């Protein structure tokens, strides 16, 4: 597995763990729990980062694991 993929999986997993922590469920921002906002952020950034990472590797001609 490419190291970029490995790091991506680690960061996403850590983010998900933080989102499911008890404090994220009790704190509310703008009427919605922080957990909800973190899930929404995950839905925006996770795909965007994965796509950018893949396109960068494609442009570099790195087909080792893409």
């Amino acid at each position, binding site marked *: *597995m490419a190291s970029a*993929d490995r790091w*991506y*999986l680690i960061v*996403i997993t850590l983010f*998900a763990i933080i989102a*499911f922590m008890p404090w994220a*469920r*009790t704190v*509310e921002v*703008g*009427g*919605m*729990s922080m*957990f*909800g906002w973190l*899930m*929404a952020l*995950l*839905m*925006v950034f*996770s*795909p*965007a980062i*994965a*796509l950018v990472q*893949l*396109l960068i590797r*494609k442009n570099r001609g790195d*087909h080792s*694991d*893409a």
Partner: protein
Amino acid sequence: MTLERTLVILYLFGCVIIGALASKRVLASRDEYWVAGRRIGTWVNAMAIMAALASGGSIIGVMGLAYGRGIPYTLSLFAGAVIGFPLASILVAKPLRNFGKFTITDFLAFRYPHPAVRILVPFLIVVSFTVYIVAQMKAAGITAETLLGIPYQQAVTLSAVVFVLYVSIGGMLAITWTDVIQGTLMLIVILGTALAMMAQNGAPTNIIAEATAKAPELGQVANEPLGSYLGLFVIWAAAIPVIPHIVMRVFTAKDPQGARLSLNIAMVVYSIMILAAVMVIVPVGKIAFPNLQDADQVFLEVMKYQFPPLIRGLAVAAVIAAVMSTTDALLLACSSAISHDLLGNYLKKHVSEKVENRINVAIVWVVGGVAMLFAYSPPKLITEFYSAAIGMLSAGLFVPVVAGLWWKKANLTGGIASIVIGAGVYLVVQFSPSFPPLSAILYGLPASALSMVIFSWLGSPMAEDLKSTIERLHR
């Protein structure tokens, strides 16, 4: 109703025409029927993946779930699905595309060579996908009932006949062509509706603040136990890399890189659509219709009372498109599970490819008919209903697929044990009243992983030629 009905009839007729056109190419060959000749380009494949996942559940169900159980609960499901895409892209897309067969069962039967695999895996797929199809048919039925005034059972029957017809005659090629149209239609309607609402009510943060001031439960986590939130997240994160109708899309890609790229593009489009639905349309719906009996009706009520007939017609077409784009892929995956995975070896020896494809057509009709009968008595909250069914697939298949690709010590004993014990523990917990709803995956998945480790340790190591083939899949 005339304009709406005309639009929907034109749309359905178009889908059948596409199926008929595609049938000329696909019925002659196994490769053409199941994986569209393996020559689908990246953007088309991405749109088809997005449309296959964005089901009636993703339009009717997602909004019903958010309305009934709150936005955070719903986002935990869809964030799980979004995480599932990079998991699929990183863990399975390249090696499975290099494997070059038709189905997830093909890979598992090759990696864990035992006749039981060709019975167990199709069984899990057919059971869970039939439940999934029933939920889709409910979405089609209530949409046509609410917005077109067609009685529920007639609407279910009509939609079932149309999509069974074009799947059965057009195979994967028809599904791909129609999925692109259906995906585009869904995007236009959901994003268009959300933008129109934002023009009236301001940014999503304002809309959510206003809605949660009137209905605080919409933004809270308190509604369900933590196990249910985590369970929903994990079910979908683990499902995407192994769910057959998405994996079959990996096999249709031109090359491994195209397979990965199309998964990632699909994920971006899917996220935008779901967030627009949950964070804009649902809060507006909650303000306008705070006491709906059936939460799954929220989008339909919004369309019915706040938009003109032309937009309503497009909305019906979009919902039916969402239902069809998923149901067609599910029907094809069910059909492949029976005729290719379960009966494939027998059929290959005894009948020609053309006859085999005729049998596929018959199986599509049988599965569609059975699901239609169940859909006449529909479940509440369809997204929860089909998520529970998909959880069984995640619990039974995620570990054997991923370990089969990435863990050299995984062997036949471990593979079969992880399928049986993962799915078995999931079912026991799911039907036990003492566990939170949808939390069964939190027991099924670890049980599957633990079984893989323990039974692989007890069994014989993988054969050397199998090991070298698996290594070649990663190159």
